[in-house]
């Protein structure tokens, strides 16, 4: 019998072998900003844990290498990822000299490469399983619960990123709140303004090109510049319009960031509303007219529901984009996770950068998964037609 190898498995095995054998697993630094000392995997862990991790990884690589059911591959990937994340926390406690509160331990390149290799295996298994939308959301919830459990259990508390967090836990949650508020609030405002504008552009053809071209121009202005440019007009409004300052409009801070994100969000919402409405089959509209529906009834009962998947796609684009761009708001005092990113860059404290960047990526990824599932649930097109 000939053994059949999985080509992706070979790539994963090579990546994982490099990550485990040549690259270093953890870095021990005397304090939070200096260069550290790289430690190989078996040096970073007590013997039993080190060899245990090696065995788990070898088994997972074997599952990746051979052609087996995607469920087995997914299981192998999940076990390997769990072993890795537990070990790195354990390595932190093991490497930190007793009683030394300045020393920091961070994951090194080998850890990240291994994490990437097995995340790739998990992604491939999930792609092959092609799970229905509800199950994808379930996977996401399970992953979030596992990570939440790890965080709560305190097994990562020795890691440098968690020490950065511990020092500013209350600020972290305030900035997290601001970040979500900025991203969701501007999305909400954009949908509120953008969809009527889209309907108007759909009905009044001469308006369409002008509105879409203007919004297109807004997109070309780099985000830091737009944030900066809005400081002046908003500052003027705050100073001269009675009551504006009272509701939080100020030259610097959240207001310009909010307005900028809103402006960037408008194009996808308006453009997709127009495209979605234009894609409504004429037959559906004629039938609705035939049974005596009024213009408004047709809009809400026929056109909007049929255009919904396209509009939801715009919401997905906008939300993911806003979560990313809200990071830049920190540069103009708007808060959000960007505060940690830019503070970290300023102090060359890379674990502080991670404290800002990792939640941003996680948030963007989670919202993409949830909205993709929503879009799929709402589109009437059967599953098979997607790839056509």
């Amino acid at each position, binding site marked *: 019998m000939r053994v059949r190898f999985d080509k*992706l498995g070979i790539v994963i095995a090579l990546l994982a072998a490099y990550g485990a054998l040549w690259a270093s697993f953890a870095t021990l630094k005397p304090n939070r900003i200096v260069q550290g000392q790289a430690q190989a995997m078996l040096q970073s862990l007590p013997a039993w844990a080190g060899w245990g991790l090696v065995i788990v990884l070898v088994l997972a690589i074997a599952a990746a290498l051979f052609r087996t059911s995607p469920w087995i591959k997914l299981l192998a990937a999940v076990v390997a990822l769990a072993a890795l994340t537990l070990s790195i926390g354990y390595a932190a406690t093991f490497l930190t000299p007793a009683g030394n509160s300045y020393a920091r331990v961070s994951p090194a390149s080998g850890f990240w490469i291994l994490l990437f290799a097995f995340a790739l295996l998990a992604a*491939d298994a999930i792609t092959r399983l092609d799970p229905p939308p509800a199950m994808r959301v379930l996977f996401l919830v399970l992953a979030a619960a596992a990570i939440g459990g790890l965080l709560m259990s305190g097994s990562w508390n020795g890691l440098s990123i968690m020490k950065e967090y511990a020092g500013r836990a209350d600020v972290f949650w305030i900035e997290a709140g601001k970040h979500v508020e900025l991203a969701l609030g501007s999305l909400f405002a954009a949908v509120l303004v953008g969809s009527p504008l889209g309907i108007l552009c759909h009905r009044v053809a001469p308006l369409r090109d002008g509105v879409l071209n203007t919004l297109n121009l807004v997109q070309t*202005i780099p985000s*830091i*510049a737009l944030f900066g*440019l809005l400081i002046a007009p908003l500052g003027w409004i705050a100073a001269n319009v009675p009551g504006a300052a009272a509701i939080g409009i100020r030259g610097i801070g959240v207001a310009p960031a909010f307005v900028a994100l809103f402006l960037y969000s408008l194009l996808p919402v308006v453009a997709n509303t127009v495209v979605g409405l234009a894609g409504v089959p004429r037959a559906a509209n004629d039938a609705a007219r035939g049974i005596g529906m009024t213009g408004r009834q047709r809009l809400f009962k026929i056109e909007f529901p049929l255009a919904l998947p396209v509009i939801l796609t715009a919401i997905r684009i906008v939300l993911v984009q806003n979560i990313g761009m809200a990071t*830049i708001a920190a540069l103009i005092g708007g808060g959000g996770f960007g505060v940690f990113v830019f503070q970290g860059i300023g102090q060359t404290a*890379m674990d502080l950068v*991670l404290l800002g960047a990792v939640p941003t990526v996680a948030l963007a990824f989670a919202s*993409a998964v949830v909205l993709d599932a929503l879009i799929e649930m709402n589109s009437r097109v059967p599953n098979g037609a997607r790839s056509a």
Partner: protein
Amino acid sequence: MRAWVPTILRSLLLLVLIAFLVSPENFEPLLKPLVQPNAPAIYNQGSLLSLTILHLRTVLIATLAATIIAVLLAILVTRPFGVEFLALSRSLVNIGQTFPPVAVLALAVPAVGFGEKPTLIALFLYGLLPIFENTLTALTNLPRSVMEAARGSGMTPFQRLIQVELPLSLPVVVAGIRLSVVISLATATIGSTVAAKTLGEVIIAGLQSNNLAFVLQGGLIVGALAVLIYDGLSAIEAMIARRTGAA
């Protein structure tokens, strides 16, 4: 009659941009009202022209590298050898695009340090996705009749790739490059937060010294570059599409 209006507007924009970059002092009266009495209205910590060239160079290097790798990867996963990777690469592109550019930039810093390198890496990785996605779409949606005709006329797989598949895909690939360039032009400004020499420097200097004129000129130069390059690539795309359509 009105078809030439956009062309005129674009040439005008290009002329104004060049005039501003060559001798920004001529525009000082325009920007003066935006700043406090004693503050400079034109960026004075370096030449705007050289920053623009550095900005464009960074974007060009990253986009070139991204184009080469993305097209090669897309060719690889659409050949029989790499077909196992096709579905995975689609989902990876999807996942990759959820990574915010700032986060990619920030995460590249620990790996390679400050300066131009993290910016190049972030622009390269981020630019890869639209080009790869478009190339993949083009290569997997070629008209079946054409492919069969090519096969029937006895072309080898390599000949089919070079003479049929790639030329037919070219307009869509260029559209991907166009998207990637516009994103990169804006993202490169953020590179200045990690000490890359780009036009972001002007904007950040403006933010730090509360100088609105700096923010405006930095932003407008990048915006104008994006509009001009976007239109230029659209024109190239239309030209190629016309040629392949006629052939």
